[in-house]
């Protein structure tokens, strides 16, 4: 039993009960359907922007990229354009690989010695789970735009077609939702059951995971099991996006739980490790070109320091230097 994940689990359950009691039993549907979402959005945007600005208020005094490939030196040595970029274009590519494909996590390799031979294997579980989680989450988020846009734009329709290509079940299964749930569950299991991960994990690692699991689970329930009135739900959400507020009757309580948890996630976001979404773009070991010797990097707070000058040095050792035949500035 670990207090960190028990706490997170209980916290999420309390949030669920809160939404259930508030929007369902007490009937504060406007509060949970309108006020909280706007509040969450404002906090999310405000918090996110202010966090990024806060980071930006600290300068990057030194150019310290982690170089993970051959540097650009002599023209006949081929260099690693993305792993050790020497230009901004290379940096952009490196960041794209990092942000879209999780390049660094993809470096995990493992070796086995078999019959005196080295066999390299990719050790990619973390990479795979992480990629599956992020991409399915992104797909789910973009798909949800259909609730906020009228008419639904073509790219969402395309994405839905792609996501539902299996044409299984009814309503047609969107893979992303299930992948999201599976990936988060696996990431959670990894934290709980791997002693190494368990040791380094904090409540603030479990909470967002469990929250996202709850969001995915309520979403799946609404779509496949305890169906809600989608038209009414869209009326509410589209109302939020057009500022024509409407809280239609008869939207299931499950919807309010789902919406509330999403709002909690948005509110929690700027104050947590989830800010890695913004932070990855600000990481000086990744977003700088390795051209420190070719282009001078300026440190805005570079202040003068005490140095031991040559004059002081010569003054101390002049006699010995002259004796040893070393040239000196001032005649001894």
């Amino acid at each position, binding site marked *: 039993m670990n207090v960190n994940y028990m706490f997170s689990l209980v916290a999420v359950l309390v949030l669920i009960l809160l939404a259930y009691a508030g929007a369902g039993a007490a009937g504060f549907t406007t509060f949970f359907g309108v006020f909280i979402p706007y509040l969450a959005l404002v906090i999310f945007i405000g918090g996110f922007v202010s966090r990024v600005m806060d980071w930006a208020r600290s300068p990057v005094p030194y150019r310290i990229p982690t170089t993970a490939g051959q540097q650009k030196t002599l023209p006949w040595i081929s260099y690693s354009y993305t792993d050790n970029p020497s230009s901004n274009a290379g940096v952009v590519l490196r960041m794209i690989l990092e942000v879209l494909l999780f390049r660094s996590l993809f470096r995990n390799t*493992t*070796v*086995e*010695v078999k019959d005196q031979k080295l066999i390299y294997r990719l050790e990619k579980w973390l990479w795979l789970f992480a990629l599956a989680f992020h991409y399915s989450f992104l797909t789910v988020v973009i798909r949800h735009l259909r609730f906020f846009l009228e008419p639904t734009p073509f790219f969402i329709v395309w994405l839905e077609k792609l996501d539902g290509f299996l044409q299984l079940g009814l309503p047609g299964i969107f893979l992303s939702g299930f992948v999201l749930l599976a990936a988060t569950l696996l990431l959670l299991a990894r934290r709980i059951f*791997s*002693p*190494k991960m*368990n*040791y380094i994990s904090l409540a603030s690692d479990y909470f967002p995971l469990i929250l996202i699991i709850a969001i995915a689970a309520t979403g799946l329930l609404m779509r496949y099991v305890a169906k809600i009135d989608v038209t009414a739900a869209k009326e509410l959400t589209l109302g939020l996006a057009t500022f024509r507020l409407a809280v239609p009757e008869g939207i299931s309580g499950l919807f309010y739980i789902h919406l509330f948890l999403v709002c909690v996630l948005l509110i929690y976001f700027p104050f947590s490790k989830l800010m890695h979404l913004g932070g990855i773009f600000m990481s000086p070991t990744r977003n700088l070109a390795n051209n420190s010797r070719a282009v001078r990097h300026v440190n805005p707070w570079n202040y003068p320091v005490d140095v031991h000058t040559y004059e002081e040095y010569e003054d101390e050792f002049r006699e010995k230097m002259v004796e040893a035949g070393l040239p000196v500035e001032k005649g001894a």
Partner: protein
Amino acid sequence: MPLEKILETYKNAILKRWFEAVAQTYPAETARFLQGQQDPFANPVGGATRTSLEGIFDQLAGDLAVDMDIEAIAAHLDPVIRIRAVQSFSPSAAVGFVFFLKKILKEELGQESRGRSELLNRLDARIDDTALVAFNIYMKCREKVFQLQSNEMRNRTFSAFQRAGLVRDVPEDDPDKNNPIE
């Protein structure tokens, strides 16, 4: 069936438990890493320990009628003791893992060991011998560490002093050879 044959059949199970027990002498997080990571370059401690234990076991479980090959045992013990000698183990913990084997053997062999007490005793004695050899190696490694320390100290300062002309060559017949620094 001769005991050696029985040991052969139980070898994998015994080795697995033995390795687990040795891994458990590390913190839990590390133990899982040592057991899980198969890459010998990413996990040299686990890799060397695994290989060593198997080598030791093969020697221990060899022909019980003849004397055990101490040289071979020492060769197999060396890599694992060499590692444990510089990790934060007490001397007893560094070599004590050899004795884990006694308990594991008893539990794993169970029924099979009935009526073979003589041979089992001999096996026990071999384990005791192995532990003693392990202790020797441990001490050798510790001595090596101290020797490396003093060597480094000497290399760093002595050559510098020597080249700076601060060292006077010691005459061949000078009895005080150990103190070359003025």
